[in-house]
């Protein structure tokens, strides 16, 4: 058994040594791979004659996998704003290292000899491609200039139509307005040779004020509440102190401090501690601060009471009444 070798084309490990290359499977894989590569190369070959130059688009960053060199190659050549289609691939195919790699690939994988030529680009072809590239660049520039000229013409047209509209609106107005309007228009015409959209803005400003004047006069009149100028006190325009900054007469500065006092702070601390205690402790809801009456008795489960704990107080009171009655009765015969 030969040592284990990996065939990158089949993506498999094989143990046949040099025999693997001649096997049916390998040859099939090889044919498929070359078939995949062929259209790309053909497209590049076509570009030799008629090189196309286009504006740069992120799609032009795409890469093509060169089987022979075993690496990715940029398909299109881009510089700044422009791209030459298939330029990158052509460059790679014409390079000497690619030629060497292609030869090696053909020898190792035992591919068909005739096919090899199709994947190579000679240096003459590459020179031809360069010439056509220059031509392509020139034609591209001409195209761009044309487009720009077209856009300028369009903008000019739009502006002209707008001016006509403004003129027609301004004519029914009073005399000063059209004079102002036309003098402004005159200055516009002077700056019109530039292909800038800045001149569009003054036309916007002029249109709204004309209709505004109409509704301001015909609407509901506002309620007048009197002139608000008292001679002594200043107001916001004269820079007087605002009312909320004026010191009150009762306020004795230094006595009052903002925020809680020290005792309140301590009380807050106590409350915080209370919150941390378990909520179901005995007497959690016992009100410590209310005043107690004279006859108050604490909750005490007595020794000889007959009912529940909260009834013991009641029982005690009845017993106390009975006892005092008894002592009264005892005393009375003595006295009398």
């Amino acid at each position, binding site marked *: 058994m030969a040592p284990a070798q990996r065939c990158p084309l089949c993506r498999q490990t094989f143990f046949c040594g040099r025999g693997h290359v001649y096997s049916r499977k390998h040859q099939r894989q090889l044919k498929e791979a070359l078939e995949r590569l062929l259209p790309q190369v053909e497209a590049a070959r076509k570009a030799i004659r008629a090189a196309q130059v286009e504006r740069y688009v992120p799609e032009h960053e795409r890469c093509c996998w060169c089987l022979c060199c075993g690496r990715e190659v940029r398909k299109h050549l881009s510089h700044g704003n422009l791209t030459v289609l298939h330029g990158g691939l052509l460059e790679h195919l014409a390079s000497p290292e690619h030629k060497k790699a292609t030869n090696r690939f053909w020898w190792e994988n035992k591919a068909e000899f005739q096919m090899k030529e199709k994947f190579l680009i000679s240096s003459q072809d590459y020179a031809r491609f360069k010439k056509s590239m220059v031509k392509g660049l020139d034609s591209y520039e001409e195209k761009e200039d044309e487009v720009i000229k077209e856009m300028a013409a369009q903008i000019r047209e739009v502006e002209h139509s707008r001016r006509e509209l403004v003129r027609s609106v301004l004519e029914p107005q009073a005399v000063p307005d059209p004079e102002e309007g036309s003098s402004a228009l005159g200055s516009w015409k002077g700056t019109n040779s530039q292909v800038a959209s800045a001149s569009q803005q003054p036309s916007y400003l002029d249109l709204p004020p004309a209709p505004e004047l109409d509704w301001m006069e015909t609407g509901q009149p506002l309620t007048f509440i009197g002139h608000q100028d008292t001679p002594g006190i200043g107001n916001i325009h004269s820079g007087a102190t605002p009312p909320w900054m004026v010191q009150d007469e009762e306020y004795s500065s230094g006595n009052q401090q903002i925020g809680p006092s020290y005792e309140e702070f301590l009380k807050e601390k106590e409350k915080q501690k*209370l919150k941390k*205690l*378990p909520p*179901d*402790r*005995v*007497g*959690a809801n*016992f009100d*410590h601060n209310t005043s*107690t009456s*004279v006859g*108050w*008795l*604490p*909750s*005490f*489960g*007595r*020794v*000889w009471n007959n009912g529940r*704990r909260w009834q013991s107080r009641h029982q*005690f009171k009845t*017993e*106390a009444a009975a*006892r005092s009655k008894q002592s009264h009765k005892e005393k009375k015969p003595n006295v009398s």
Partner: protein
Amino acid sequence: MSFLLPKLTSKKEVDQAIKSTAEKVLVLRFGRDEDPVCLQLDDILSKTSSDLSKMAAIYLVDVDQTPVYTHYFDISYIPSTVFFFNGQHMKVDYGSPDHTKFVGSFKTKQDFIDLVEVIYRGAMRGKLIVQSPIDPKNIPKYDLLYQDI
């Protein structure tokens, strides 16, 4: 020893002590200052009061000056110690017939400290009656006087 602990001399003062002690065990010793067993108990109470200051507040009450509470708490033997927490009376099962108060004196300071701690923990958990940790040998024996017999 009794001059080291605060004394309560009227019902009003006792009421105030019960109402004002918050989140701590209130220990009320009912007795007379001159009684020998009371003196023993007072000694133990005063010596442990500072250690238990965060858990308990200890007061001495004279039985002759507060007859209302002497009747209400059924105090027939002195000294008797009653425990409160947040205005609620805490019962303790010592193994003796009366659970509402501790009759007599404690044998050691540690007994008293353990008892207060058990009461405190029970109160925090919401229990109104707890089991005493004191060895039954150390609990003073007495006969409960039956009422109305």
